[in-house]
């Protein structure tokens, strides 16, 4: 990535992290962590708040660094590629979890190997098809035989 794109990323990341950590400090931790229960001991909220405070402080530094560098350099065009890729993987992850939960490991495994094998450019079907149909059941069988654990 070129320097101006780094600067934009740093400015955005720093701002997002600062807002998120502030929200966590002032809302999430008080809502989901009880106050002190033992006399003379630190509150259970102390350390999460401490860690988040460090993240908040550093995020503000990062945001300022990014904005400062952005002002000094001409901004270059950012691409949507990484965002689309991340969204694609997030969607795939949701489908993978749903598949393993409802359809089972073997069927989901076959689908994953075939679909991603083709998407990643694998063109030799003589390797891909046997690998797709044989390896997930083989893994499931091996796990059952070796560890006595049945995959979903």
């Amino acid at each position, binding site marked *: 990535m070129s320097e101006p794109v780094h600067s934009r990323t740093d400015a955005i990341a720093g701002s997002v992290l600062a807002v998120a950590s502030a929200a966590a400090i002032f809302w999430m931790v008080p809502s989901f962590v009880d106050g002190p229960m033992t006399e003379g*001991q630190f509150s259970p909220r102390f350390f999460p708040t401490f860690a988040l405070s460090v993240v908040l402080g550093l995020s503000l530094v*990062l945001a300022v660094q990014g904005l400062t560098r952005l002002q000094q350099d001409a901004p270059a065009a950012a691409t949507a590629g990484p965002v689309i890729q991340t969204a694609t993987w997030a969607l795939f992850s949701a489908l993978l979890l749903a598949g393993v939960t409802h359809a089972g490991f073997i069927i989901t495994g076959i689908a994953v190997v075939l679909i991603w094998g083709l998407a990643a450019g694998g063109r030799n079907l003589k390797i891909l098809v046997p690998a797709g149909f044989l390896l997930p059941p083989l893994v499931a069988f091996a796990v059952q035989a070796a560890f006595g654990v049945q995959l979903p």
Partner: protein
Amino acid sequence: MIDQLIAGFAEALTFYNVLFITLGLVLGIVIGVIPGLGSVTAMAVLIPVTYYMSPVTAIAFLVGVNKGGTSGGAIPAVLLNSPGTAESAASALDGYPMAKRGEPERAMKFALYSSVTGDTISDMLLIVLVVPFATIALQFGPLEFASVLLFAFTLLAGISSASPVKGLIAIFFGVFLATIGLDPVDSTPRLTFDQIHLYDGLSLIAVAIGSLALSSVAAQLLDMAAKRRGGGVPHEALPPSTNRHLGAVEFFSHWKTIIRSSLFGSGVGMLPGLGVTLAAFLSYGAARKASKDPDSFGKGNPEGIIATEAANSAVVGANLVPALALGIPGNVAAALLISAFIIHGIVPGPFMMTMHGDVVYALFASMLMANFLHLIVGRLGIPVWALVTKVDQAYVLPIVVMLCVTGVYLPSQSLFDVGVMLIFAVLGLVMSRTGFSVVGMVIGFILGGLFETSLRQSLLLYKSDYSVLLESPIALAFLLLAALVILRGMWPAKRQEPVHDAQ
């Protein structure tokens, strides 16, 4: 120490231990040969498999995977000019020219023998140094531990990351994630959102596999899909092998380079955050400087291979020195080994030698045995590893995805943990695309509990009386070092400002 080591050999020299060490070496080499995977991915995916092994066999297996994975990266470096792992990149500089002039097997033998020798030297240093380190660490109280951890965090962030600020953010985010679960003193649920699965905190296996292994696989699959081509490495055919022989006399004639590189790797391995790749390149540079014929480097000088492989393998043993003595990992591989120790009920740190000394010495014995087995397995398998380099990643990586699911599901049979792994894979992908250190986050997560305990105890014991720092030279020294590292990280930015203002 000798008696304990002999007892360690007696415990380690069992059929299953030798079998699993060999299996670990083979898996490590095979995975190290495949570009983009590496020993870290292998270890992360295979840790759950060790649940069903004894602690000694489990750790020995993972050490075998680490050793094999580190040296396996040299094979595609030599044969294809495409290193399997980053730390073997320097091996390609001289290994590939050697292969092109008809000496691929000699080059791979140089790499193998250097790996084994570097590994052995660093393992011996580990055995000698860990007890004194642990003895010193026994003097550490909570204040000293908190200071050492803070220094380790700043070193990791300041040296291993392009941006120290981002590195520290990642580490302290990991520290925050470690607070999810029950408070260590009150047992009050913290950030569990009424999910019983979170009462024990986030699963270390799910976090490690998701953020380290699966996110890396995801990045590669997405890049390959974007280019719509397979990940097989195109390469020009090498000429027939004209000289295969490499004798011990010839190899050890390079003893100065071997010892210098092994010590480089051992030194780097003992310091958190510096990493295997740095050791390899530092050693390569030093070997070239010390050489009578520096211009021959990069053109097939075997000392280039020796320097790289001895150094990167020497890191493996040395990074266990702070890991075993202090419980602080030198790099992510050591962090994963610490996780494996914890999973098997052994907490690394200064008390490990006294409470689990038999396990530790059995581990040392296993590591020395693993070097010997590495030599045999590596040497016999040279023709086989060459075939593995031809496998297209497009067929391998989707299978690794399902192996990650299997690995996370295996220990607790929990789909919740699979979900956590998938979330951390997405998070790891976002972090690596935006320049945040995933390794830092994982190490912060692993050490977060220890840091919290040390910090809370320090603050309680000394009731925020900062003058106590003056009474603890160890704590003061590490805090000053941490401050120095932070300042050093900020210094290049400060130097640029006057030039810019002048302009």
